[in-house]
């Protein structure tokens, strides 16, 4: 019999499974089609090009209520990315600090960090989002507390930053010699100054690399490594300083006008709260990853390095970190993935991310739940796949060679 032959057995089985999966898929699709017909709806993404009609509080690209649902969704996606990127950066920094501190010899500090980690890891993220948001709305003063001759609240950082229960008002960068903007179409513009800075920074980074590789060759040749830190610092900062001077870049402090602070950048509390909560929550996990990564490099490694006469900082750079990073980075990236997915909890604080626009107001106004949710899931999926393929590339590159 066919199923008794090893060569055909698995083939038979796969064919059966294939048929079953096809049947199930067909069943689902058929049901959906019939349901859509019954409700008099169609599967059609045309609604994306109709007028959205609602406003969004945070718009990284120009957007008004007259724009399409598609543009609203893109705004939402960008908002998702903003909070995800900010969160990943801050969570990494905090997580590394906490993780290293947990290994600190200071008993008290290490214990405090342990408490931090356990508290944040073992309570739902939603709780943290709500708490941080509540702290911001309940404890910070309203903008009009800054009003009057004897205001109840005062701005911090030399009258440049105002913490209110709506937003954190931070200074914007203003230019006296504005070079104008590059128009990319679709009302997306980049200021030439921004471009100049990006070029300066990227260029500086390349020069820095050149300096470092020159130092390396010098070291290889003579054994002495030239001092590089001040050159690097200069390369990275001087062009920017020159540009600041050329464009007349300065801070413009926000000031209270009418109901609100104007002139500065008002970062809404929903963003700040979401960002902080995501940061704290994810940092707790990252701290554990970092700690485990460092501990995974056995003590023998640092002892061997010491015995060879390497100083502690060199030991860290040349021996411990390269090994620990291999252990740290893969789970770190999956934390980035979690953070990105968790940012969809923005709904709890009314931050208009992808879920708030495409999966929220747009879905509601148009009643296209099937299309909207499918599109939203696919977008998240693509984000995840991009992140995790980055991880795979990394893993493949740093894998330790074993027998």
């Amino acid at each position, binding site marked *: 019999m066919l199923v008794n032959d090893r060569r055909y057995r698995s083939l038979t089985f796969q064919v059966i499974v294939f048929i079953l999966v096809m049947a199930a898929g067909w069943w689902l699709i058929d049901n959906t089609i019939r349901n859509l017909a019954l409700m008099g709806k169609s599967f059609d993404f045309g609604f994306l090009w109709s007028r959205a009609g609602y406003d969004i509080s945070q718009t990284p690209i120009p957007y008004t209520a007259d724009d399409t649902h598609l543009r609203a969704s893109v705004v939402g996606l960008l908002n998702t990315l903003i909070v995800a990127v900010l969160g990943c950066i801050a969570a990494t920094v905090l997580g590394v600090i906490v993780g290293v501190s947990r290994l600190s010899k200071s*008993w008290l500090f290490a214990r405090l960090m342990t408490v931090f980690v356990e508290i944040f890891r073992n309570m739902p993220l939603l*709780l943290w989002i709500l708490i941080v948001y509540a702290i911001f709305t309940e404890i910070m003063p309203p903008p009009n507390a800054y009003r009057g001759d004897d205001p109840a609240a005062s701005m911090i950082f030399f009258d440049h930053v105002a913490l209110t229960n709506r937003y954190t008002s931070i200074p914007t960068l203003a230019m006296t010699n504005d070079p104008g903007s590059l128009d990319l179409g679709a009302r997306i513009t980049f200021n030439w100054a921004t471009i100049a800075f990006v070029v300066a920074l990227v260029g500086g980074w390349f020069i820095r690399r050149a300096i470092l590789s020159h130092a390396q060759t010098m070291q290889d040749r003579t054994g002495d490594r030239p001092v590089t830190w001040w050159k690097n610092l200069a390369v990275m900062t001087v062009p920017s300083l020159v540009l600041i001077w050329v464009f007349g870049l300065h801070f413009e402090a926000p000031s209270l006008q009418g109901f609100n602070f104007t002139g500065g950048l008002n970062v809404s509390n929903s963003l700040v709260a979401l960002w902080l909560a995501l940061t704290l929550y994810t940092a707790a996990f990252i701290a554990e990853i970092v700690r485990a990564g460092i501990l995974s490099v056995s003590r023998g490694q640092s002892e061997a390095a010491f015995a060879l006469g390497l100083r502690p900082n060199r030991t860290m750079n040349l021996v411990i970190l390269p090994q620990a990073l291999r252990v740290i980075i893969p789970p770190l990236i999956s934390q980035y993935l979690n953070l990105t997915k968790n940012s969809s909890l923005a709904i709890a604080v009314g931050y208009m991310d992808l879920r708030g626009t495409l999966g929220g107001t747009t879905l509601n106004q148009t009643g296209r739940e099937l299309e909207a949710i499918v599109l939203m899931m696919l977008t998240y999926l693509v984000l995840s796949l991009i992140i995790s393929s980055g991880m795979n590339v990394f893993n493949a590159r740093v894998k330790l060679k074993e027998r």
Partner: protein
Amino acid sequence: MSDTHAQTVPFVRDTMLPSAAPPIRESGAVRWMRENLFSGPVNTILTLLGLLIVWFLIATFWDWFAHSVWNASSLNECREIITATWGDTARGACFAVIRERWNQYLFGFYPRELYWRPTMTFGLLMVALAPVLFSASLTIRRVVLAITAVVTLWAMVVLGAPVVWLAFAVLVLAGGGYLSERNITWLLPFSALYPLLGVWLLWGGSLWGPIFVLVGPALGWVAWRLLSRVSGLLATVAAILVTLVFWMVLAGDATGDAERMLSLSIESVRSDRFGGFLLSLTIGVAGIALSLPLGIVLALARQSDMFLIKSLSVIFIEFIRGVPLITLLFVASLLLNYFLPPGTSFDIILRVIIMVTIFAAAYMAEVIRGGLAALPKGQYEAADALGLDYWKAQRLIVLPQALKISIPGIVSTFIGMFKDTTLVTFVGLYDPLKSMSDAVRANIEWKGIYWEPFIFVGGIFFLICFGMSRYSMYLERRLQRDHR
């Protein structure tokens, strides 16, 4: 040779030196402080920083906690009491809201007179889990079961459980304790039956329902026994078919008929009365229990060398892991009805459990895959060489070991899932954190209360999750030890 020995001074110790006391800075509190608090400039700074943080936390929150009010019927009353007792400017916590509404946070809208039912259900859950989670150490088992028994019975008495059910609980708990002393594996049948018992106790209704659910697989087994002489494959297919047909065609009517002949029902409670931690735990436990078998299948499929099976499972797992849980919950509440035949619509809790199960299964599959990968290849080869076929090898050799290795991962998955159950608030269910607090705050008396519910709910989450994570760490360490 002689020259090399020139330098050698033969030396023999005739009396052994006694051990001396260490220098003062090497012992006692001084050493501890020196080594643990002030062992260098950086650490000294860190210690001082730590002291600062502790001081700041105490200074900020101490009076708020110290001025707690536990007895009041509204927020305003709380405030009055605080002002009256500690003066005008005093701040204080109003934990009276917890005292007044704890039942809603724990049980949602479950009928008050039936609170003992969920309580008993979760008490018995510990017994059902004993052979799975606490199998290794008799001491842990004893402690867990003893605490469970005391707490459950006490709570049931306080909540006014009927004597019959008290007797039932005593029977099960004592039986569990007894079996756990003898041979823990004898409790496994109870663990297997527990899901049905739990569902019946929570939702109520006729006992015939669960009984007929059991009859299905029993008939399937009979069919398998009869046909397995003919062909293994045929028997398996027949067994599955018989079970499904029985469930879909006969079970419903049979339940009704049996109920008419002999009524075995307890008061039924509808899903919409579930809320608070009862809802979280129900979803969490059901999700894990259901996702485990699904996760095993997915993991085996992902390890399979059949291309199609492997890719299907990879696609499924990666898709589910690539989207946020919240979108899956939206699918449960908005889209599931599209995918089912027109006119079907079923309980939203059930739909949420399905999506949570699928979500957890994808994570579970990865955990179990880790367990499978940790098994040495020799185990598979030995099974092959003994003539065990694939399924027997999986069932008898591979899975028992792989699952045991995976238990810590499974517990972690559960912790994550349990925390995530708070997200059901976004599909209109009463989770303990947001919806329940909103409902409490919707009352004029408690409008404006934030921190106390957060602390209460957060505290419970912390206790459960922290306890479980410590336990899974302990398991992990023990596994590392005795796997050698």
